Each structure stands twice: as structure tokens, then as C-alpha cells.
């Protein structure tokens, strides 16, 4: 566990979990899940939320046993080399989250606001801010998460504008999709909840880790509620064939907003959204930095260099990915990796941890 002065109060886990789950995915998650589950897709949001809560519970089971972060656990269970390698996969995954979030956000800016925008400059300005947060330590990252949830929260009220055009009847008839279709859609929905795995690395920074579990679940609940809210409005607002034509259905809903002082609300919405994605990038970059630092035993003084290197990787790869297709492909790869790591590897690791300790204890008993 870290020293007391670097630790954070347990309730802040609420913001950490929620802020990293909610990112650019909100803009276009409807299309994929409605493709298979149609008007019943709201059930999959609830289903996926429950599944994620279970994974959070399993994570706490694992972390509470070891009282260490994931990298420490890997070292305990698999030794220095294999453990280090497994940790590296996780670091790549966290870094990928950062890249995807940043790149998808820039894509939205390119398509909706400024097609000619200079990506490098935009990235550098944003990453200077990220650099400030990450080198400032975990408490600063937590602070950004806290503000990143509270300040832009007003944005969700703007989704009440479309209510005038809603056909709530579209939700009916309930349950006209097969269990198979719903399961498929739930799998797709799980992707929208990803990112909470950073808990595995900031766990030692929690003051009373056991008390924080309830807050983690609540954070996940808030994410679920927001997804559910936006989905129900989207189902009523669009007809099913219409939503499949919109790449960013949530954003397209803002097109209906009419305010006396602004013609296109998207400009306000998208720029406000930067506060929602900032904690995403900060937390994933921080997790990657922290991971590298622990694996290679890098001294605190040199952490700055690590984070600069990581930020340059982020910048380079973000600028290198061009076009809808490449972004989509990388997104798919990241989703697959995330799905495997979080929903398969974590339960497996927890099981292994229990079994290994049983065996080891057994061995000690015999000796």
C-alpha cells in the first residue's frame, strides 16, 4: 500500500470508475446494440451493467486478498518474467484505451466541426494538460475525474430537448427478440462499460479499500443509468432503420436542439465533452506510466521521462491512425482485447490466485 499522504478517500472511487467508463462510446453505442436487439436493447444495458458489477466484485476479491496492484499480483503468482510480460499486455491495453478515446474524439471534431483541423497541434495542446495531470500524481488524476464528472453533467439535460419528438410506443412490444439476440447485444454493450479495469492499478492508493467497493458499484450504476437514459430517448426519437444510418446517433440528437443564442448546439456539446474524455486519457496514461514504473523499478525522479515517452507514443499513434476504417479496426481490436482481459482473464486470475494459495498452503502444511 502507498503512503497515507498519497491516498484518496474511498468515495472518490465512484468518480474514478464512472469517469473512465463514460467516454466517446456514448455518441454511437446505440447502433451496434440495436442492430441485434432492436427496441429491447435497453435490457442489454441493464444486463451488461450487472455483468460489469460482478466483475468489479471479483476484482475486489482478488485485490483484497493480495493488498497489491495487478503488477504485484502478477509477480507473486507468475514470477518476475512471465508476470512482467502479462503486466505489459495490460499496459498496452490501458494505453490503447487512451489512444482510442483521443483518436475517436478528434474524429468527431473533424467530422462535425472542423474537417481541416491540424491534429498534431490539437493533440499537443491536450496532451500538455494530460502531462500536467499525470506528473502531478494520482491525486491530481482523481481530481480531474471528479471535475470531469461534475462540471459537464449539465450536458445530459440537453438530451431532454428531443423529448418533444419521442414516440415511447417504439419501446413496445417488450421482449420480441430472442435470448440469443439479446446475449449478442449484451456482449456488444459490455464494450461501452470498459475502462474500469484501471482499478487494478490504483487500488493501493485507496485509503480504506474495503469501504470503497460500494462506491465502485455505485459509479458503475451511474454509468448504466446514463446509458439507459440516452438509449431510451434514442429508441423513441429514431425509428429503427433510421438509427442504423447514424454513425453518432447521440450527437445527431443535438441537431434538433433549438436555442435562441446558438444555431448548432453540437459546437457547445462537443467542446464540453472534452471534459468528459480528459479523465479517460489521464487515467489510462497514468495507469500505463505507473505500470511501467513498477515493472522496471524506475525511480520517482525519472517518472517524468516515462510519462513523456508514453505521451509521445500516444501522440504518434493518434496522428498515425487515419480514416474511419482504421479507427473502426483499432476499436474492434481494443474491444476484443478488453473483453478477453477483463471478462475472461480477471476471473481466471482470481481463481488461480485462490487455487495457488491453497496448494502452497497445503505444501507448507505437509512440510
Amino acid at each position, binding site marked *: 500500500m502507498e503512503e497515507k499522504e498519497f491516498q484518496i478517500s474511498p468515495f472518490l472511487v465512484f468518480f474514478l470508475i464512472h469517469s473512465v467508463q463514460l467516454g466517446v462510446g456514448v455518441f454511437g453505442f446505440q447502433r451496434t446494440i440495436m442492430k441485434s436487439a432492436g427496441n429491447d436493447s435497453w435490457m442489454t444495458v441493464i444486463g451488461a451493467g450487472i455483468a460489469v458489477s460482478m466483475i468489479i466484485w471479483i476484482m475486489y476479491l482478488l485485490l483484497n486478498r493480495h493488498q497489491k496492484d495487478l503488477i504485484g499480483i502478477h509477480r507473486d503468482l507468475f514470477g518476475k518474467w512471465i508476470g512482467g510480460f502479462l503486466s505489459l499486455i495490460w499496459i498496452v491495453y490501458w494505453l490503447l484505451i487512451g489512444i482510442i478515446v483521443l483518436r475517436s474524439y478528434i474524429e468527431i471534431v473533424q467530422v462535425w466541426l*472542423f474537417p481541416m*483541423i491540424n491534429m498534431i*497541434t*490539437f493533440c499537443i495542446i491536450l496532451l500538455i494538460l494530460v502531462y500536467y495531470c499525470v506528473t502531478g500524481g494520482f491525486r491530481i488524476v482523481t481530481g480531474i475525474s471528479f471535475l470531469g464528472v461534475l462540471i459537464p453533467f449539465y450536458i445530459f439535460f440537453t438530451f431532454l430537448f428531443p423529448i418533444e419528438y419521442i414516440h415511447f*410506443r417504439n419501446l413496445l*412490444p417488450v421482449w*420480441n427478440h430472442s435470448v440469443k439476440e439479446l446475449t449478442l447485444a449484451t456482449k456488444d454493450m459490455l464494450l461501452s462499460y470498459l475502462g474500469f479495469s484501471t482499478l487494478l492499478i490504483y487500488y493501493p492508493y485507496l485509503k480504506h479499500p474495503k469501504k470503497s467497493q460500494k462506491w465502485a458499484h455505485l459509479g458503475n450504476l451511474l454509468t448504466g443509468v446514463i446509458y439507459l437514459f440516452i438509449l431510451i430517448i434514442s429508441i423513441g426519437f429514431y*425509428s*429503427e432503420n433510421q438509427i442504423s444510418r447514424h454513425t453518432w446517433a447521440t450527437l445527431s440528437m443535438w*441537431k434538433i436542439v433549438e436555442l435562441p443564442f446558438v444555431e448548432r448546439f453540437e459546437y457547445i456539446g462537443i467542446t464540453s465533452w472534452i471534459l468528459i474524455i480528459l479523465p479517460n486519457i489521464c487515467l489510462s496514461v497514468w495507469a500505463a506510466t505507473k505500470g511501467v514504473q513498477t515493472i522496471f523499478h524506475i525511480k520517482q525522479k525519472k517518472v517524468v521521462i516515462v510519462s513523456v515517452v508514453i505521451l509521445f507514443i500516444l501522440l504518434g499513434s493518434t496522428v498515425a491512425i487515419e480514416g474511419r476504417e482504421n479507427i473502426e479496426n483499432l476499436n474492434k481490436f481494443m474491444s476484443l482485447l478488453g473483453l478477453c482481459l477483463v471478462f475472461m482473464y480477471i476471473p481466471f486470475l482470481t481463481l488461480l490466485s485462490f487455487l495457488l494459495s491453497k496448494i502452497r498452503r497445503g505444501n507448507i502444511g505437509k512440510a
Partner: protein
Amino acid sequence: MGKLKRMMQILLLSVLLTGCMNIDQRILDDVQLVTGAAYRYVDDDIIELTTVFPNYQPDGSVKNETLTTTAILNKENRDKQSLQSEKPMVSGKLEVALYERETAEKGIVDLLDTLARDPSIGANIYLAILDGNPKVVLSKQYGNMDNGIFLSNLIEQNVETGLIHKTNLHIFKYKLYAEGIDPMLPIIEQKEGKLNIKAIGLFEDDKLVDQIEQEKFFFLTLLLVHKGQKDTYAFKTKEEKKVSIVNIKSVRKYDIPEPMTNAEIKINMDVKAIIREYSDGTLNKQKIKKIENELKDEIEKNSEEIIQQFQEKGIDPLGIGEEVRTRTRKWDQKKWKQLYPDIKITVRAKVKIMETGVIE
């Protein structure tokens, strides 16, 4: 001190970098804000686009100006128009899009793409059908504003006062892509030098096939919305007395006992109205009772006629299909299209006159 210096450097860097973002500035005075666009197919695949934009005069008045070009696609038309214009044409303030009647009969889905794909165009712009040559109709000035704003105000005002149904690009697209409902758009004509909403055009998919005349707007809006108000109607009773009423609250409910079969569908309407003009002196209880009964018959008769008209054409602007779809798990669009023209649809109305104005 060193830390402060570094902070200042970073801050300066961020500020200076914003200049390198390569963002297009669009200053209001330096662009031509297109407020209206009218589309017409001159050939099978050549589009004639007429755009309307305001020209602000030094004395504060607004002059309506138009540009007309032909090209294979709308955005190319815009480029061609920019070649004729002193300022670049931008579409962010587009308020109304018009389709010439024959074009609408051919189908407008290809022409909608330019509106739907462009992020700068809102979902609440109005669409309408223009009966007449766009170039001729739009080049005339109708108010102290350009015709884009004028048409937008014309439609908006009538939607808000309840004379015509709610309409805009989003609603049109919703109905176009939804299963079990077909879109409608107002038809505008030039009549004695004025613009006039002449009828409501009915679509099958994206093609204009039929229309509802002004006299029947009341029944159409009554049938269309679940909870409606503000629409008006005037009629002659059997005793040649003339009455004008305002609907202050109407509730429309579907009764579909066996969805997806050809069993009868009942539409129940509960209308609460007030009398705003009457041609035969004072009103008393018996007279009101009579008016209520006759209005009830009028609504039932006309509504059923309208529905019959829809069924004959095989179109469903009321969304009866949508009502069926949300009531059954056996929804099948093809099967419904076959069933729909032969289903017996009856309208039952209940009318209550609440008030008769400030005099009896």
C-alpha cells in the same frame, strides 16, 4: 521561480499553438447565409437548385435574392453558385428546403442526402413541396425578409397554431424509415401573388402520391396526434346554421383487439371544443346538443373518408401500422401491406362543447 517560468512557458506554448490549428473562420459578414433551397429535376439526373439568401440593404431592409444553377449533385450546385457570388455560400442557416411537385413525385430520397450528411444543417429545418417553378416563385419577395425565413415562419406559425401537422426534416426521415408509417409534407403554391399552404402531400416511401385539401386539415390533425389541440373547423348544420369551433383538447385512442389480422380497427376520439362563431343568434342547451351531435357525425364521416382514401392508395400517414407493430410480436411489414387496404377501420367520436364564448 524556475517552476513558475516553466509554467509560463507551457502556458505560452498552448496559447501560441492554438494559432496553428488550421481552423476555418467564418465571420458572419463575410459569408452568404443560404436560408432556403429548392430542388427540381430538370432531367433524370440533373438537379436544378435555386437558393435563397438575404441581401441586407443600407436602410435596414432585406432584399430577397436567388441564384439558380444546374448540376449533377447539390454540393456541385453550391460550388457553381459560389462562382456567381461575392461571398462563399454556407448552409448553416438553412431554414427550409422545397421540392418541386414533379420532382417529389419522382422521389426525393436522393435529394435528402445532402441535408442529412451535412453536419452544419439542423434536423429542424422545414421541408415542403412547391407547386410551381421554384425559380419563378422564389425570385419574388413576399415580406420584409428573404423567402427562406418567410417560408419557415409561414410553416412554423401554422404548426404552432395547430392548423397543420408538426413537420420537419427529422420527422420526415423518421417516418420515411419507420415501418408502418408514411411521411407527409405541406404543399405550397403561389396564389394571387401570395404564398399559400394549399394542401398536405402524402407520400408512399419518398414519392408524392396524393394530397389532402385544406378543408380536411382538421380531421387529419385530429387523427394524427394522440393528444391534440388548437385546430379549428367550420361547418354548416342540417338547418343551414353555420358554426365555427376550436378544438381545445382531443384525445385519440386506437382499439386494436386482434393485431396483424384483418379484424376491425377502432379509433376512438374524445373531442372537447369551444364555439367561436355562430350564425344564428343565441345558443341554448338544445342547440348545443344538436351541434355536438352533428359535429360528431361530421368527424366520423370525414375521418373515415380520409382513411378510406389512404387505404385505396395503400399509404399510411396516420401510422396505423406503427400502432399495430407496437401491439404484436408477429409484426411483418410485407404481410401488413397486404392486409392494410382491406381492414375495416371505423372512427367513433365523442364531442363535448365546453364554452360558447363571452356571449350566450
